[in-house]
């Protein structure tokens, strides 16, 4: 139970960075840390105590493999999620480069036109 709580602290760190910091690159870092926390949470849900990776090796008993292996389904979901996170980060960097070209700064508070 405590490990889930520590994981949610990691998530909150990323969210705090995303909200309170003003540097655009730091906002991107906060988003990346949030992604890490969510991926780790899904993997933690599928862990079995003393588990082995879900890969069948030659000479392994089938029934023993089914007994011991960790849950493979969360790993599948996370594997796609990591690569999607990479491409989303590339898009965020592209937009922040455009903002830098227009305003010559990465500071959010100096980008006036985004103020509501």
């Amino acid at each position, binding site marked *: 139970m405590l490990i889930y709580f520590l994981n949610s602290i990691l998530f909150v760190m990323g969210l705090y960075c995303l909200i309170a910091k003003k540097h655009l690159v730091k906002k991107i870092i906060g988003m990346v840390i949030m992604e890490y926390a969510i991926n780790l949470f899904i993997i933690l849900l599928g862990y079995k105590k003393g588990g082995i*990776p879900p*890969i069948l090796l*030659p000479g392994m008993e089938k029934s023993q493999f089914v007994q011991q292996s960790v849950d493979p389904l969360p790993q599948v979901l996370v*594997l796609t999620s*990591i*690569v999607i996170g*990479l*491409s989303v980060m590339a898009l965020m960097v592209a937009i922040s*480069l*455009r903002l830098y070209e227009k305003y010559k700064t990465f500071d959010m508070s100096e980008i006036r036109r985004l103020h509501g």
Partner: protein
Amino acid sequence: MEGMTFIVKTTTKLLIGIIFLFGIYITFYGHLTPGGGFAGGIMLACGMILMTLAFGKRMSLGKLSDFYASLLDNLGAFTFWTIAMLGYIGGYFFMNFIEKSNPFGLLSSGTILTINIAIGVKVFASVFAVFMALTIFGRFVSGLISEDED
């Protein structure tokens, strides 16, 4: 001089073949060992990015220009979709229509190997293209740094 120092260039020349070989291995043996198309494709892109950082953009764009990178990207996605459509031979979308054999061989898993290769090519081309767009074409846009400097 374009690129980095002599030490980095020599090390890159020694390492680049091994990196590409490892990426191709990871892609091809994804259904037997850990890895797969995503990790292998990004490893191949890492090799190209190392070449860009060490030798400068002219060298790596000479090997694989941005036009051909986007073409490879589209080709990978199209191959994936074609394999999915070929499943209609047997009856439904994404059917594993190639015959399967002994579970620990390279050709044991039917379409999984081909899908892995398609995904690997697609991820390789798209990550390389977006790196070039972010680092080099982005500089042209902003006009802050002159074109010759790398």
